[in-house]
């Protein structure tokens, strides 16, 4: 049996181990254990009763459904964007590249009120769309736009380095074998980018599912219609209903966990397909 820590001449093992574990426990692990503890002492039956209400189900469904579609948009657009940034040279490329990170850097509440101001019926875009009977703000579409915004950088940033690494000779080989450029893109390049794109998709999805700040302003928070799951947690907390909040929180964690596990498995499968790198 191999030792727990392989002997090493490096200094600072106990110090770095101590800092890491203490801070990880205090900031992340113990609070998360407190959530699970609250759920356990409340009981599975009562927790289920909290979740098994129309309003909660609708909110959970809404959160995951819209997050999924936002991540899906970001998957497709993110891959395109990464490809354009890596392969094409055009004036302002650096600026575009930097702009991709804005959703990371911009506080979510700021993004929320800005998007609302744009898409509200009296806003810049909202007033353009109003004559056509299209409402964005205070509908599911508004939530979708907010979640697309916050998840925008993930896929691009994971795909970019992989796209940069693609060996041009492989593309040339495909062309010399008679394949059209489109065929090469679909059959040779897309499979190479797939694992990274999936990683980005998973990150964008995880972020979108839990997103709160940018959504609550534009969503309108109409019960049963545009209420997202994190908002229900906040509402339970405002009524000091800790058990209810814990139940919904645990449900969200559980669903996220299952989703991310599924994506991980998909990724392992696609990496295997890419061949034993």
């Amino acid at each position: 049996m191999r030792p727990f820590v392989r002997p090493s001449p490096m200094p600072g093992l106990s110090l770095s181990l101590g800092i890491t574990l203490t801070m990880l426990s205090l900031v992340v692990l113990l609070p998360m254990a407190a959530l699970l503890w609250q759920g356990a002492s409340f009981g599975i039956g009562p927790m289920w009763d909290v979740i098994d209400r129309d309003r909660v189900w609708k909110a959970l469904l809404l959160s995951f459904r819209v997050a999924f579609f936002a991540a899906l948009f970001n998957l497709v657009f993110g891959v395109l964007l990464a490809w354009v940034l890596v392969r094409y040279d055009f004036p302002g490329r650096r600026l575009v590249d930097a702009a991709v990170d804005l959703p990371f850097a911009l506080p979510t509440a700021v993004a929320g009120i800005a998007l609302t101001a744009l898409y509200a019926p009296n806003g810049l875009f909202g007033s353009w769309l109003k004559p056509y009977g299209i409402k964005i703000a205070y509908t599911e579409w508004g939530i979708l736009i907010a979640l697309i915004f916050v998840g925008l950088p993930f896929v691009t940033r994971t795909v970019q380095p992989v796209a940069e690494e693609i060996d041009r000779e492989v593309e040339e080989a495909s062309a010399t074998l008679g394949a059209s450029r489109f065929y090469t893109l679909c059959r040779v390049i897309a499979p190479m980018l797939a694992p990274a794109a999936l990683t980005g998709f998973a990150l964008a999805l995880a972020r979108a599912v839990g997103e709160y700040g940018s959504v609550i302003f534009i969503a309108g928070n109409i019960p049963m219609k545009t209420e997202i799951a994190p908002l229900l947690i906040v509402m339970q907390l405002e009524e000091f209903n800790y058990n209810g909040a814990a139940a919904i929180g645990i449900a969200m964690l559980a669903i996220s966990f299952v989703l991310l596990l599924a994506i991980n498995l998909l990724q392992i499968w696609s990496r295997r397909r890419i061949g034993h790198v």
Partner: protein
Amino acid sequence: MSETPSSHRPRFRSATEEPAPVRIGLIAFVVLVLAVLVLAPLGVIFSEAFAKGWAAAWKALQSKDLQSAIWLTLVVAAIAVPLNAVFGVAAAWLITKFDFRGKAVLITLIDLPFSVSPVVAGLCLVLMFGANTMVGGWLVAQGMPIVFAIPGIVMATMFVTFPFVARELIPVMIEQGRTEEEAALTLGASGWRTFLTVTLPNIRWALLYGVLLCNARAMGEFGAVAVVSGKIRGKTATMPLAIEMLYNEYLSVAAFSLAGLLTLLALVTLLLKSVLEIRYADQLAATRRH
């Protein structure tokens, strides 16, 4: 014999490029989408802030509550970010300089906050340190409340920004390996001296990069902080929370002026980040990752 003087555009299709119309079309498409999705919100923040002129925006920022919100945000970031930086360096050192069982589990746990909703993060802290809990009750009795007070805001901020520095450092330190530290040790340098004179100079730009991202997120965090702060005006309302309150009270100019300040911070962050990426790309293994 046909002369095509040094033109890089061959008459026939290059093997590794899409045809020009496709290229131009794609560039136009992504630029347009980014303009609508990213640039437009940016523009609207400033146009709303200055809707009633510069003076009105400036005056709105002078209110006492907003001043205290700005101050609180700075204080929280000044505590949370250095603590996370210390954690990040320690964790990266532990993970890259030693081999031990459960390393993969440790890395997963460090990344955990990325897949937890900020609201759930806040909820966890309330359940751990709330006045009605064992730990929280005891702390309140000692006169050290966490929830609805500054320590809670700091902890919530730390939770959501926890992985940033470590994530940036780990790939860089893996790439750099252990040989330089080993060399220093064989030359008789102490552990601290090795760290300060060998490791730190090698990772300083990556560290700065991680701190930058961590700080931007820390100053802008909303969901987690909203849950633990109690939103006491002038006391526990950070800048993002103040924005929400002003917005809900239809004080648009004030809300967007404050938002404009945070946007400036975001733009400065992006600028510094780009500078780091351009100048020290080779020292940021994780340049493109978050």
